């Protein structure tokens, strides 16, 4: 007999939406269980710019979304300030960009009530010295940058503190349906391999790019288009503000600063499956070539990481260019498909995650015939320590060594000390997760510096042995998995110094330790 967890709401998908819903509902007094077959932000939530749109980007293509962005930005700045860096942003156009679009831009912004202010070119170059010399127009907007990892972690921590729980590496196997209802869900814990049941009154499908697949389990079809976007992380921060290319949305035209790095993106390529997507060399080159139009330094600077995310877009009619598909979100009550206690929320964008969560929660409450208003507008998102460690350069921020006592630095690049690792291990355990290199790296800056895990992986790995977090030699596969995770991000960026660094990594892990000789299969 399987053990069964009873709860009010089962949320599938640990992205910003899922965690957002979890928090929203917890605030309304409902108890949720959030499951993810991987870990937090494994999908598009982890694979984006971390940009909070002021809305200006959508004034042309999607005024409704623009307005949403505008409002959400205000709320988030107020309530989740610690996840946000209020950088402000610029829209810049360079020679050869569409003159008419530039001309219409201020008007369109006005229509959507999005702030935008024309800026003298000289002044602009003063504000952002790296900007290209052939600027032709610059507008200032209210963009901000946000740390989606911190956001999800904090949302989840808050939800957990209110009685909900998060189960990582738990995959939904199937829905047991009985007369117009999902009776219970069968879940498999991928770490332990054991299965169990979750019996919930309502089920929220917040699995983003996987939404169609989850819906299918309930016998429901959703037309979804998956558009892969690739982004590059520079080794050092290029600009103070967010830099957008002032033209119809296309590739490599947004540069977002976050902490001590900058992120340039994106591309848009149609993919069939959200699993196993990775940045291709051609994409990278394409982004760099586009990006250097507005910031020439992007041609020469060092990149430490590239990553991809799959945008879940719900489209009625199959269009060719996925950017024309609305970035507005889709909330489906599957009552119409004959499943009463099943909701799908997908599409949308990071900027509007809270709104999506609100609308979803409203629907859930309506189904539970609870009459409550959303509180995430008012109640600020509390800040916890574990949330902080995903912030670039944070460890260096607070002088870590100045404290006394034995606490060696394990990750030199980002200065993550042993103590931090131990706390992270505990917090992962609390969430019934498996504390290993990957889950630690997800919640901290470990392996995100220039060495890309070459050294820190080994130090942390042996530390985990020391603390009996892991005992078995076979766990060495975690190390391989971790290195491969990093590899996904660096493979396409290996030239000049980055290649030196990765060759060194290979010398150590393959040349000396012969990791490749250990079979992957368990």
């Amino acid at each position: 007999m399987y053990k069964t967890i009873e709860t009010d709401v089962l949320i599938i998908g640990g992205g910003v939406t899922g965690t957002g819903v979890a928090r929203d509902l917890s605030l309304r007094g409902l108890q949720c269980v959030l499951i993810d077959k991987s870990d937090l932000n494994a999908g598009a939530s982890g694979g984006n710019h971390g940009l909070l749109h002021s809305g200006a980007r959508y004034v042309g293509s999607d005024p409704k979304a623009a307005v949403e962005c505008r409002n959400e930005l205000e709320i988030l700045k107020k309530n989740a300030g610690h996840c946000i860096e209020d950088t402000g942003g610029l829209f810049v156009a360079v020679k050869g960009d569409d003159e008419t679009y530039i001309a219409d831009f201020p008007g369109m912004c006005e229509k959507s009530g999005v702030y935008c202010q024309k800026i003298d070119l000289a002044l602009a170059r003063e504000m952002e010295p790296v900007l290209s010399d052939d600027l032709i127009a610059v507008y200032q907007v209210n963009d901000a940058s946000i740390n989606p990892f911190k956001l999800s972690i904090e949302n989840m921590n808050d939800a957990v503190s209110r009685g909900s729980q998060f189960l990582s590496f738990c995959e939904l196997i199937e829905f047991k349906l009985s007369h117009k209802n999902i009776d219970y869900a069968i879940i498999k814990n991928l770490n332990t391999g054991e299965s169990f049941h979750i019996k919930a009154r309502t089920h929220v499908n917040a699995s983003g790019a996987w939404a169609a697949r989850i819906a299918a389990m309930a016998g429901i079809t959703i037309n979804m288009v998956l558009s892969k976007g690739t982004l590059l992380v520079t080794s050092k921060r290029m600009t103070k503000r967010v830099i957008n290319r002032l033209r119809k949305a296309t590739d490599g035209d947004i540069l977002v600063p976050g902490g001590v790095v900058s992120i340039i993106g994106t591309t848009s390529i149609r993919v069939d499956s959200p699993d196993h997507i990775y940045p291709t060399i051609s994409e990278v080159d394409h982004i760099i070539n586009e990006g250097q139009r507005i910031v020439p330094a992007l041609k020469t600077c060092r990149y430490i990481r590239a990553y991809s995310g799959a945008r879940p877009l719900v489209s009625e009619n199959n269009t060719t260019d996925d950017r024309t598909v609305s970035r507005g979100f889709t909330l489906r009550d599957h009552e119409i498909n004959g499943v009463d206690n099943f909701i799908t929320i997908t599409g949308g964008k990071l900027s509007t995650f809270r709104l999506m969560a609100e609308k979803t929660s409203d629907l859930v409450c309506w189904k539970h015939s609870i009459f409550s208003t959303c509180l995430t507008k008012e109640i600020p998102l509390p800040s916890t320590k574990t949330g902080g460690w995903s912030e670039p350069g944070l460890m260096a921020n607070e002088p870590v060594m100045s404290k006394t006592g034995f606490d060696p630095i394990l990750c030199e690049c980002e200065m993550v000390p042993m103590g931090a690792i131990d706390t992270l291990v505990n917090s992962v355990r609390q969430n019934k997760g498996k504390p290993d290199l990957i889950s630690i790296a997800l919640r901290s800056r470990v392996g995100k510096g220039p060495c890309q895990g070459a050294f820190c992986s080994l130090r942390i790995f042996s530390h985990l042995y020391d603390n009996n977090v892991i005992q078995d030699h076979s766990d060495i596969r975690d190390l391989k998995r971790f290195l491969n995770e990093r590899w996904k991000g660096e493979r396409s960026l290996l030239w000049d110094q980055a290649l030196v660094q990765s060759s060194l990594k290979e010398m150590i892990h393959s040349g000396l330790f012969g990791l490749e000789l250990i079979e992957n299969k368990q």
Partner: protein
Amino acid sequence: MKIKKTADCDVLVIGAGMAGCIAAARASSLGMKTIQAGNSSSFFFASGLFDLLGVFPVETGKIVDRPCSAIAQLQSEQRDHPYSKTTVDQIKEGFEFLASFLDSASLPYSLPGTDNRHILTSLGTFKPTYMVPQTVSKGCNLEEKNILIVDFKGLRGFSAKQVAAGLATKNRQTQVLSIEVPENLGNLNPVHLATAFEKKEFIQHLADKLLKFSGKADIVGLPAVCGIHNSLEITESLEKKTGMDVFEIPGMPPSIPGLRLKNAFEKKLSGLGTLFLSNAKIIFHAMEKDHFILRAVNDNFETRIKAQGVILATGRFPGGGLFARRDIILETVFDLPVFQPETREMWHQLNFLDPKGHLINQAGLETDEMFRPLDKAGKPAFENLYAAGSIIAHNDWTRLKCGAGVACISAYTAVNSFYKRHL
């Protein structure tokens, strides 16, 4: 303006890595006037173990026990691998030279017969290798022994438990011991720990801790940090004090066995009269008749070198011998043609630890039998220019575990043939 100097020599060795130093060693012990330029810190990344051929064929990940026979097979299958340009006997000869040279530099290595050793690493894996320091060699046969693995609090990247877990896979019962180093607050750096080993008090302190296990264990594995200058005496004194065998376990960089090699080479070479231009950047100037004219550029002075022959041992990307632009791979000193995959797409596999290895590791210089780099026409680019070490194409040493072997044999052969042909 920089101070100008001039220097003549028989052979200029560009690069101070493994290959460079072996080349310089060979050259100067043949009595050639040698100049060496480069940065010798790459030794900190060298495990101190000399691989010959550890894995072949790589696709199957087959661990090699008898390297010589495996090399024969490799020679037949991979025509352009550096090993295929020489014979097994030459390789043996090269290794004997190396061993004797290091021995004369009071860094004793134990040269085995035909078999590979399988050396326990700090990760708990076993590394197939060939010639190892005597401080390590005791760790080769652990059968039927009660093993004690020791780690030091604060020495990052080395956990006795981790090593024990590795040993467990070979069903060996292992005890672990973690030792606190007196007055250490934070990171314990290998080099500093190794210097501590050279203090008598510390050895005593260590021995006292180990004695608690006398009887329970008969062989002790320590991280490879047992002193820098006289590691063998130190381990032996430990053995005397404790009555247990002591062996070292190589681990992540910075590697002390590597540092020992660095010191041994530098001391001996300097003694043999090799002029070492630390951190000098070599720029090829011109040929004067059959002489190379090169400029060794340092921050504050510049040496105009007139050399009969040049050994190019600048290594691959970390060594700076090859430089990868976004679109192409270049050779940095002579701008020689570099064998490489057509596009960057093909440089790397999707899987970091793909057993096949990354194609970019096949990149490098094509050479003839004497390890002279070839030009586009396939002729030797220069009469007296030789390549040695990892800059030579078609050897993915990280997968084949043949780095030291290739370095040794290419350097050895290159110098020898230069010597034969021109002096």
